[in-house]
């Protein structure tokens, strides 16, 4: 009755051999292609370095002005503008200015990348149920696989640094962008699409002039989610060498520096709320004219 008491598993030797073979294969792969992959990601690395240098190198009053201007342009609300300035001032006053700039640089880059990758995939997914059936389970894996697990192959391939960190963040933050783009386009009023057809719009004209603008509020909700998820990854990405607010938090965990952890944690929360309110206010402004339709 041995098979009844304990699950009939693969023999230990075979299991060990299987894991070893896969590990070995991947190690060979990363040894032979790691270098060329690194060259492939070189432009990305340069962009990351550049954006970080710009944000860190720009004098703080200018950054404050820019942040206030951006908040105003997106939300047209004085409350949000003041909240943005006050948050940044507090973060700076408590000595976290540079780390915050590094984190914001990382968030902006990974959000841009997520949009650049997610928007076309989302559009593709909205076009065909078959594509959706293939992509959906991949997105499920991306969202539920513990981030530490996919950090391993990324680090093996690209080592520790900005680019692997960026990849880890994008893998985590990309799914909502794809899902909400797909959803937004699928929810576009079919009557409006029929009208576009009736006036002889080409597929491209239909996409640009009707589908994307009508789906934009939903797509903006996707961007908002992407930003939030990217921020949530800041601390984990710090484990593989991404600089910013995540690193002091890691240091605080290993050395039990309660206050250091709390300050940096609060800074992350502050930045998160700020970016959330700004992007949501922008999304809401895009919806301004879509109120109740009179019929």
């Amino acid at each position: 009755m041995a098979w009844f008491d304990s699950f009939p598993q693969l023999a230990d030797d075979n299991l060990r051999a299987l894991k070893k073979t896969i590990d070995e294969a991947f190690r060979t792969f990363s040894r032979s292609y790691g270098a060329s992959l690194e060259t492939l990601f070189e432009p990305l690395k340069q962009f990351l370095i550049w954006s970080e240098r710009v944000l860190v190198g720009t004098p703080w009053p200018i950054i404050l002005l820019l942040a206030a201007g951006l908040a105003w342009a997106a939300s047209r609300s004085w409350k949000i503008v003041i909240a943005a300035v006050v948050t940044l001032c507090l973060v700076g006053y408590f000595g976290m200015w540079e780390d915050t700039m590094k984190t914001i640089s990382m968030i902006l880059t990974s959000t841009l990348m997520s949009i650049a990758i997610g928007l076309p995939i989302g559009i593709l997914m909205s076009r065909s149920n078959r594509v959706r059936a293939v992509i959906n389970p991949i997105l499920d894996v991306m969202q539920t696989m513990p981030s530490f697990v996919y950090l391993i192959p990324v680090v093996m391939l690209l080592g520790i640094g900005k680019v692997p960190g960026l990849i880890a963040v994008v893998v985590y933050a990309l799914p909502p962008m794809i899902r909400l783009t797909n959803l937004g386009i699928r929810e576009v009023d079919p009557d409006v699409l029929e009208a576009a057809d009736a006036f002889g719009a080409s597929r491209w004209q239909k996409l640009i002039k009707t589908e994307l603008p009508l789906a934009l509020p939903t797509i903006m909700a996707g961007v908002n989610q992407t930003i939030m998820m990217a921020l949530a990854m800041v601390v984990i990405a710090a484990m593989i060498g991404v600089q910013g607010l995540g690193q002091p938090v890691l240091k605080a965990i290993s050395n039990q520096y309660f206050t250091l952890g709390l300050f940096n944690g609060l800074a992350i929360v502050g930045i998160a709320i700020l970016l959330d309110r700004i992007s949501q206010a922008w999304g809401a402004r895009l919806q301004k004219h879509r109120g109740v339709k009179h019929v």
Partner: protein
Amino acid sequence: MSEPLEIEIRNLFKIFGANPAAHVEAVRAGMTKAELNERHRHVLGLREINISIPAGAIQVVMGLSGSGKSTLIRHINRLIEPTAGEIIIDGQDVVKMAPEALREFRRHQTAMVFQKFALLPHRSVLDNAAFGLEVQGIDEAERLRIARHWIERVGLAGFEKSYPSQLSGGMQQRVGLARALANDAPILLMDEAYSALDPLIRYDMQTVLLDLQKEVRKTIVFITHDLDEALRIGDRIALLRDGSVIQQGTGQDIVLNPADDYVANFVQHVDRGKIVKVGSVMVPPGADAPGADGSIGAEATLLEALHRMVASGEKCLGVTGPSGQPVGLLPLDRAISAYAG
């Protein structure tokens, strides 16, 4: 202004289902909609439609919901693919057009107005009206100039910068009409364009359309389920039931000579006095009738003739043709019996 075009719909069939082409012959041979659905799980949309629409006329297609009228109008610009048949416009079969040709055809030869307006909510009234021209690739200054002109013509001057959600239903449909007219296409397709509007506003919009038509002279296909609307607007009316045309002709033809009980039932509550012309109910001159007092044109409606007789106490009117020559007589009792049906 573009020259109006005639539309020739020949032997058009539409069957919805997995393998529609396989059942055309059976339907041609007389299978009913119910049989087709029961035996083959296919839905009969349209059966052997033949309609010739003269250039510059308003053709109304009328029927209750489910009769296939909205399906029919979507075949004219091929938003729906027919199962069999031809649609000849300007010497070309729309059914056989390649995608690029079809797009050009939709851009330049047809414009459409929709029941639910189908405006772009993120665009102002002006940009909505310019949409068709934008799709055609006309540059911005020119298309806005044209759009502004038509917004004014449909009575929306001053609302150019408003958004659809800020307008009432009637005003939104004016935008839909301006968008269609701005295209200057010879064919105007109106799919239950006024069905979503209140009766009073609907009447207003019919007037707008009739006034504009005097000037733009387009070939208009107008779908409606409202008989009064059909009779008021249509030069010609086709009645659709279960996907087949059961009668077509002028409004007067249909009211005076209904093809079957269904049509008769349909038209029995119509105010015949407004539809029936004096010329079609008069008796020939010299018939046994009291001497005529005054005279009235053959194109006048029965109601106008009755109003005159009641007001003046005349017992009989002489009927005159287009050049004033006497063509018949209309005694009062004859007018009353024709009015009562």
